[in-house]
């Protein structure tokens, strides 16, 4: 038996599309768009012959009954292309599940190792190095906005580019990870230098 022929979940996660938490966020945040995309995808893949016939009919109405020798391609299949930002084999509700399970996993780990504690701040280090008091929440919001814009603009985050992409030695991920890590080092060093 060849390992390459084993279509197990682990194999799919290993060799399929890169895993990205920011992408899960993206699909959950834009859940209406994701839902419409998935419905369209299901419609196309459920009746490929109807889709092809409709395309042919539209082509013939535009170019005449002979069709001008135009060949109509098959409908797109979901999960087939890693580069396409619109196709995805994991629905948005499952992406939402994955975010919830990260929360549950962290909660369980915090309970087990005794770290769980309800806190209204981000800890003494954050107060010393970044900000404390009434500016804490606006600072976190601005930081979150930068993370949200930046990860979408770069097409990935520390898991998508950093973990999956770098482990596959993909040039785009090596560049992205170098830049975002280097920037975080520079900004953190600057914060430490200022205090």
């Amino acid at each position, binding site marked *: 038996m060849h390992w*390459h022929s084993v*279509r197990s979940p682990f194999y799919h996660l*290993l*060799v*399929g599309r*890169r895993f990205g938490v*920011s992408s899960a*966020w*993206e*699909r959950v945040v834009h859940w209406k768009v994701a839902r419409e995309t998935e419905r369209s995808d299901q419609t196309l893949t459920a009746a490929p012959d109807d889709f092809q016939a409709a395309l042919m009919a539209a082509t013939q109405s535009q170019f005449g009954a002979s069709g001008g020798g135009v060949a109509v391609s098959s409908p797109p299949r979901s*999960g087939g292309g*890693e*580069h*396409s*930002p619109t196709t995805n*084999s*994991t629905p948005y509700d499952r992406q939402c*599940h*994955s975010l919830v*399970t*990260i929360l*549950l*996993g*962290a909660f*369980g*780990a*915090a309970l087990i190792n005794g770290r*769980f504690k309800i*806190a209204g701040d981000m*800890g003494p280090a*954050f107060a010393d190095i*970044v900000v404390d008091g009434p500016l804490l929440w606006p600072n*976190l*919001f*601005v*930081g*979150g*906005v*930068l*993370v*949200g814009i*930046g*990860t979408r*603009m*770069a*097409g*990935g*985050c520390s*898991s998508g580019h950093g973990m*999956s992409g770098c*482990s596959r030695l993909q040039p785009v991920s090596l*560049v992205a990870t170098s*830049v*975002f890590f280097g*920037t*975080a*080092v520079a*900004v*953190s*060093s600057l914060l430490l230098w200022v205090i």
Partner: protein
Amino acid sequence: MHATNQLRVHGFVDLFGLALGASLGMIGFGDFAELNAMFTLQDLRMLFTFMGAVAVAGALFYTFTKDRPKGPPIHRGIVPGAVLFGTGWAISGGCPSIPIVQLGTGYLPALMTMAGIATGMRAYRKLNARYSHFDTGACSI
């Protein structure tokens, strides 16, 4: 992908999420002190942990795959996007998964980071459609 196998993949994604949340919490990525110590190069334990995880994932990937999928091309959004992300990570202590881990550990203000991430993503979609038109090739399962 076959429907049954897809269900298995979804179940595996849930397990993967649990494992990811637990491991990130245990390693200390949700702790700003640990994160800042890594970013200021005072304590490289977390960096080595991250590099170890990348090495293991890479070894598995190259051992078990023949037809390796190509990554998206390098595009104009990579550098500015990564700069914004790195800045946001440094000042909030949260890459997209970390605020969730922080919330699971009990840090309630992490909700604000999460609200910021959602707002940033919504803003980016509109700005990109109107101005920048980057095709970033999003990563996802």
